[in-house]
C-alpha cells in the first residue's frame, strides 16, 4: 500500500473534503524552510463530529488503513477517530499521521492558534509555526526529536535574520 508520497495531493484532497486541519511535525518544518526529510505527513485535525465525518470521507477516498507490520488492513472508522489520539495510516498518496494533540497536550485550539496560512500553489494550508514545532519536539524528547532540534533551531534563527527580526 505504501506509495511514493504525494503530500501536496493529499493536502488538496483533505481540503476538497473540507477537513479542518493543521500541518505539524517535520512537514511543517520543511514548509518553514528546514532542509530535512520525512516519510509521513503529520496533521492535527479539529475533533468536532462534523469534521470527523468529513475526515472519514477523505480517508475512504484515500483508501487509508492503519500501519501494521503484520499487514492487517484495519480501516479508520468513526469510533476510532473519536477515541484514539494518534492514527498512523497508510494511504494511496503516502503515509499520514493524524493526531488529536501534540507535545505537552497541545490540542486543536492551541495548535490552530499557533498556525499560519501558507500558500502552496492554488492551495492555502494552515501550518504550525516553527517555534511551536520546536516546542513539540522538545516535549516529545525522543531520540529522533533531539537529533532534529539543532537543525530546527538554526532554521528558526536564520528565518528571523532573513526577516530582519
Amino acid at each position: 500500500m505504501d506509495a511514493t508520497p504525494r503530500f501536496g495531493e493529499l493536502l488538496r484532497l483533505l481540503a476538497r473534503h473540507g477537513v479542518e486541519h493543521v500541518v505539524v511535525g517535520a512537514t511543517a518544518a520543511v514548509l518553514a524552510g528546514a532542509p530535512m526529510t520525512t516519510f509521513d505527513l503529520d496533521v492535527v485535525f479539529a475533533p468536532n463530529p462534523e469534521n470527523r465525518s468529513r475526515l472519514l470521507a477523505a480517508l475512504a477516498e484515500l483508501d487509508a488503513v492503519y500501519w501494521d507490520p503484520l499487514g492487517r488492513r484495519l480501516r479508520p472508522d468513526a469510533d476510532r477517530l473519536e477515541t484514539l489520539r494518534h492514527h498512523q495510516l497508510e494511504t494511496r498518496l503516502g503515509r499520514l499521521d493524524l493526531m488529536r494533540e501534540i507535545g505537552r497536550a497541545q490540542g486543536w485550539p492551541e495548535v490552530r492558534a499557533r498556525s499560519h496560512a501558507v500558500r502552496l500553489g492554488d492551495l492555502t494550508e494552515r501550518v504550525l509555526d516553527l517555534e511551536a514545532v520546536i516546542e513539540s519536539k522538545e516535549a516529545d524528547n525522543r531520540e529522533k526529536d533531539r537529533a532534529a532540534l539543532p537543525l530546527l533551531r538554526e532554521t528558526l534563527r536564520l528565518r528571523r535574520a532573513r526577516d530582519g527580526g
Partner: protein
Amino acid sequence: MSSRPLPPLPGVDPATAPAPGDPDYPAWVESVAISPEGIDRTLIWASLHRTPAARLAALERAVADLLELSGGRYPEIR
C-alpha cells in the same frame, strides 16, 4: 543545475571576507557556514529563499529517491 545568487548569510560581509585561495579562507568558510552543532547553514539559507511549494516538491522528490534506494521499504520509525 544552476543556482541563483543568494543574499550573503547573516553576519557575512563580502567586503571583508577572505578570498578563495587565502590561507584563512577554509577556516572562515567553516566558521560562517557551519553551526557549532555541525548544521550546514548554507543549505538552510538556500531553502529559506525557495517558496513553500518548492520545498514541498523537493521533499516529495527526496523521499521518492530514498524509497528507490531502499527498494520501496519505508522506515519502521515514524
